[in-house]
């Protein structure tokens, strides 16, 4: 069986997931995930024609809230920022590495 998870796939997927994987560990992840993905291949043998996927098991629907302001849960500015690694004048701060 040809490999499913190549190093290229690891690099691409890691980028999508915003995970930095050091170059020397890419192959290691690839070789660890390969047998796992292979194991998953057993699913492809199951006939799922016309089977509706199940995304959740609550059996509930239309659980909505009224449009009411819930001040009980709202944070003060200092609470909101209390765990921020960096903040300034009431704002969270991050280095502008990404251009929108």
């Amino acid at each position, binding site marked *: 069986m040809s490999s499913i998870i190549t190093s290229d796939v690891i690099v691409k997927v890691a980028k*999508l997931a915003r995970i930095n994987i050091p170059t020397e560990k890419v192959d290691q992840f690839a070789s660890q995930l390969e047998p796992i993905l292979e194991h998953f291949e057993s699913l492809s043998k199951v006939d799922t024609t016309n089977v509706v996927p199940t995304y959740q098991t609550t059996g509930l629907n239309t659980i909505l*809230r009224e*449009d009411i302001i*819930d001040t009980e849960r709202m944070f*003060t500015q200092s609470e909101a920022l209390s765990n921020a690694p960096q903040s300034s004048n009431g704002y969270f701060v991050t280095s502008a590495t990404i251009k929108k």
Partner: protein
Amino acid sequence: MKITPIIGLEVHVELKTKSKMFCGCDAEHFHTEPNTHTCPVCLGLPGALPVPNKKACEWCIKLGLALGCTINEETFFERKNYFYPDLAKSYQISQLQKPFCINGKLEDVRINRVHQEEDTGKSVHVNGETLLDFNRSGVPLVEIVSEPDIKSPEDAKTYLLKIQQIVRYLGISDADIEKGSMRCEPTINLCIDDEFYTPLVEIKNVASLTGVMTAIQYEIDRQAEQYSQDKITKNSTNKTTRGWDADKQQTFLQREKEGSADYRYFPEPDIPPIIFSKEQVEAIRATLPEMPEAKIAKYKTLGLSDYDSNLLSEDSYFSSIFDKIITDSDSVYAKFVANLLIGPLKTIEITIDKINPEYFKNLFDNKDQLSSSAIKQLVLESYDKQVDPLILAKQQNLFQVSDTNKLEEIAKDVIANNPKAVADYQKNPMSIGFLVGQVMKSSGGSANPQVAKEVLEKLLVLN
């Protein structure tokens, strides 16, 4: 080279619900202290869970209905995964497979879908740093996606103004493009010589109506130029995103947001599916106000001009005031009221509750005894003081005397006392104005000038 622009618009409208889309935070985010309207949910804290705002869902459906959409009875939310510092959870809760509304139409433009999602926080870039405010994070957004049926920047503008008008009519959003409560992302390509298609380009960061038009025109010209050079045509992989630089008045190729090509949508496991039964949808439909098109048609039937009809129906509040005053199909009365609304009343802020249709009717019924300036004055004053204009007119002696017998007595006195003016008149009938003025003066301004003139003419001929 024959060039046909193909333009589709994605329009985001921020709903003006009191609370946010998935939590109970105050949804106001203009002129608020940063990060004062947040909670575990919209700040994306570990363990927080979303619960959808019912009113926002209903408003999304309402907009869909106003745009002639089919409403999906069962829908669900999905997660759109991408990283950006102002996106708290690193996914946006949106709808992909089953939006609330599909297949609508706005005049000649087909609407693909109207779906519900949530806004991101605001980021400001200062000195190499990004400042983040999450007051806007989780504010309900509705996205209206058109089919690429728009052919020119002007058509795009018309479409946007229509959407804006409808949204405002429904009272679900301010839809202010400059403030950002209505945003537009055009997707453009060109059909060349009815045969070739240039690569798709999505334009971002357009922040004004003129910007939308200029950006589209710029992009049309740029793509035409580009195509004449490279002859590259559209394929499934060469769609690009370009930003609009309002200072330079040009679009520029944006570095793709990392991973933006693959949003890994999947059904949101934290929110059960949402069902709006046919009955519930009909109940929402029943709350739809009369839409602008219908209003215009109605006003024209009343005998109003195209100009007046359009002006009156521009704003739903304004037209509802007109509708409150007009209770029958009397076309003269309609014109009378329209003139007052478009005229003097347009200059002040009006509250519909303070509008008393009876006052207008009374003014109309007595319009022959009132000067046009008196009518203008009375309509404003009666609104302001909440007093019947007829009472005001009486108090201020604004009624014009049209009783010929009474006017004849005054006129006789005037003629007797002004022999020179009478002589002038006999030489030149155009100079009757002076005598009319004297009658007005003697009557204390209450004489109807037209009737006074007729009486004078009659008496002077008899002389």
